[in-house]
């Protein structure tokens, strides 16, 4: 219990979550289920990035109670991975909306959500 840190717990759950998401993306037959798998993979990768940027016993990188200009470098967590993940979450929503719009269009053509019915580009 002593040598397991908070970051190890978050790292392992993020890694297993992204493996589960990739498994869903590869094995599911339903298009909507595949998109759900992609969303899970996205969340797992965000968890990994935040866990790597964590510093032991640190607090949020916002100057306020307990964090002053003088001791900021000693008590805060790394702000750069947080800024990158902030960007990644918003882009993830854009990609999910785009994939769902494709799914609607595909369903309009063939009235089916099964990926095995779409063989137009398979040779």
């Amino acid at each position: 219990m002593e040598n397991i840190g908070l970051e190890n717990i978050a790292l392992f759950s993020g890694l297993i979550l992204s493996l589960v998401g990739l498994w869903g993306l590869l094995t599911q037959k339903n298009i909507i289920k595949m998109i759900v798998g992609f969303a899970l993979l996205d969340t797992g990768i965000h968890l990994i990035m935040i866990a790597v940027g964590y510093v032991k016993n640190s607090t949020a990188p916002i100057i306020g109670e307990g964090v002053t200009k003088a001791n900021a470098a000693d008590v805060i967590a790394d702000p750069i991975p947080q800024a990158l993940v902030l960007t990644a979450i918003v882009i993830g929503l854009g990609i999910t909306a785009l994939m769902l719009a494709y799914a609607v269009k595909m369903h309009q053509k063939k009235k089916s959500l099964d990926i095995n019915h779409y063989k137009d580009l398979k040779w």
Partner: protein
Amino acid sequence: MIIKIVAIIIGLLIIGLAIYALHAKKLTVAILGAGAVSLLASIMFLLLAAPDVAMTEAAIGSGLSTIIFFYVLNKIRKQNG
């Protein structure tokens, strides 16, 4: 110490909900499971001292993307007649 136990429980719940979401037969349950994973991940971000990311995940991952999924599901149901 207490925070670590909370984090372990939340991590196990995240993995369980993710597997359940992909295993479920109904699409509604799958989307709800993905929303619940986002919700618990946002608490995990808060424990890892990232409140900005937690707020983004709460507003976008658990809020807007669930809404967009259900609009699309409704449109597909209407196309089926």
